[in-house]
């Protein structure tokens, strides 16, 4: 009876894994198919793989769009981690007037729908001539990523024992020195985790990117979304492109797999 129950549990776990893995595998498989094989009825499972789709993707504007995505995501992350770590440390170590209110307000930015800021940012950036420029998306992404970084990093700073900082103070360190030379190095892992989440979130965003960029600063998802409107859908190019684009995120996920709870719950759980 116990053995049976255990076997059933394992079977269920394997089934679940298959449900979540299959769509991804199917797209990976499809990215190595020719146009004819892609549209074959019934779908083909065994075929001679071709790299043509990847070659096509790299010959299009796609590498440029990936570059845009990376520039925007990395800049957003650097700004968010810098400002986020300062404020998170502040909330963690000092009591300021209205601290609860401020923290809650920052948390509530998690709920702000992107569509609500599309209209005003579109108008402002249009007036300033910043539409379709990297800086436009970087600024808007900062709104969402700074608030995220503050909350997640606060959790990491809270975990650093105060005694270590007090000892540094006794050694004559000033508060900024304590922060830079003691707290930040101790929060290294937390900073890296938070940075990876910021990168992923910025890479994955679509609504703001499609509204605020058109050509020059177009990110990879926006570029891919336009592939499908030109004479039918080039599924080979789309699947190859998405896989190249997603590969870094997959690697990032493997790196932060033990901190997923913290990252996905805005630091509310760990």
């Amino acid at each position, binding site marked *: 009876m116990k053995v049976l129950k255990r076997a059933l549990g394992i079977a269920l*776990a394997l089934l*679940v*894994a298959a449900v*979540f893995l299959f*769509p991804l595998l*199917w*797209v990976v498989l*499809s990215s190595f198919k020719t146009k004819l094989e*892609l*549209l074959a*009825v*019934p779908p083909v499972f065994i075929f001679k793989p071709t790299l043509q789709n990847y070659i096509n993707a790299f010959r299009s504007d796609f590498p440029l769009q990936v570059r845009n995505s990376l520039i925007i995501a990395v800049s957003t992350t650097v700004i968010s981690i810098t*400002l986020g770590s*300062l*404020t998170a440390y*502040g909330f963690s170590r000092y*009591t*300021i*007037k209205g601290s609860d209110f*401020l923290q809650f307000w*920052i948390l*509530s*930015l*998690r*709920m*702000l*729908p*992107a*569509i*609500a*800021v*599309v*209209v*005003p940012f*579109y108008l402002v950036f*249009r007036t300033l001539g910043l539409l379709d420029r990297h800086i436009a998306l970087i600024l*808007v992404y*900062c*709104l969402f990523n*700074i608030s995220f970084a503050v909350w997640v990093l606060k959790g990491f700073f809270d975990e650093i024992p105060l005694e270590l900082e007090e000892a540094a103070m006794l050694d004559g360190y000033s508060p*900024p020195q304590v922060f830079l030379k003691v707290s930040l190095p101790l929060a290294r892992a937390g900073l890296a985790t938070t940075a990876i989440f910021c990168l*992923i979130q910025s890479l*994955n965003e*679509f*609504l703001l990117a*499609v*509204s605020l960029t058109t050509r020059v600063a177009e990110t990879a998802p926006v570029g*891919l*979304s336009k592939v499908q409107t030109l004479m039918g859908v080039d599924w080979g190019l*789309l699947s190859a492109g*998405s896989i190249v*684009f997603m590969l870094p995120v*997959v690697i990032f*996920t*493997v790196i932060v*797999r033990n901190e997923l*709870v913290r990252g*996905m*719950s805005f630091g509310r*759980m760990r």
Partner: protein
Amino acid sequence: MSQEAMVNEREGPATAVEAAAGLRDLWWRRLLFIPTITLLLLLAIVPLIFSLGVSLFNYTLGSRAIWIGLGNYIYMFTDPQFWLATRVTVQFTIAAVSIEVVLGILLAFILNQRFTGMGIIRLIVFLPMMLAPFCIGLFWRFMFDQTFGIVDYMLTRIGLPAIPWLTHPFWAQVAVVVVDVWQWTPFVALLVLAGVGTIPAELLEAATLDRASTWLKFRQIYWPYLRFPLLLALLFRSIDTLKLFDSPFILTGGGPGNFTSTLSILGYRHQIMFFNVGMAAAISWIVVIIINIVANILIRLITPIKVEQVSTGL
């Protein structure tokens, strides 16, 4: 509230050295908060107020803005498209979130077993929610295709009829929910699993010794530890589906016949396709208000004792 008032002044310094140190501390604390708060205020509050202003104008890009007061809102509330989008958004939210919560709890218990290889299975299950919703939508559109899609192929193989995903109003809505459930059920499971991890081992052992029934065990032992993670998951998922854009936009473009057009898609259309900025601002404000109400209710459930005035970025 002025920025400087937020920083606590210390009690009076005794010596000049201490005074200098106190001043330095004050500036240090200002540096910690002021740049971030200022930037966030500029990026969140200013645009929202600006957008509220814009929503009071009949403003199409390229022509002059004309003050019409609540005209956009009045037009919106008499527009069947708006009510359809609201209904669709709410339906998606209720359907997707309730399925995700139920399946998420089950998934958490499946993933809570211990055996070799469970680490890899968990990684596989938690991977989709990290990937761009845009890409996920794209993949499912490929799989839902009526002629060469793998989903219909599998359905017909096991003797079921092929389903017109993406072209039939009802099935297109089902498809959007399926994609959301596929991507986000693991998120609920992740939080539940973290909640299960906080249950003291003695408690679980005691229950095993007592041979408590499964339901009793769930109600008495698991539930108290799962309440917070589940409400948190409910909060995040409800808010995210209320602002759903990426996957229906990619899957169906809002069609057929606007039956998968969420409020975010409707707002985007007015903004980017019709250049009707005033209308887009009005719609986006409705999204903000709906999310505000839902978030307030759920947050009150999470912190029943400490009732706080909550707003979404306002």
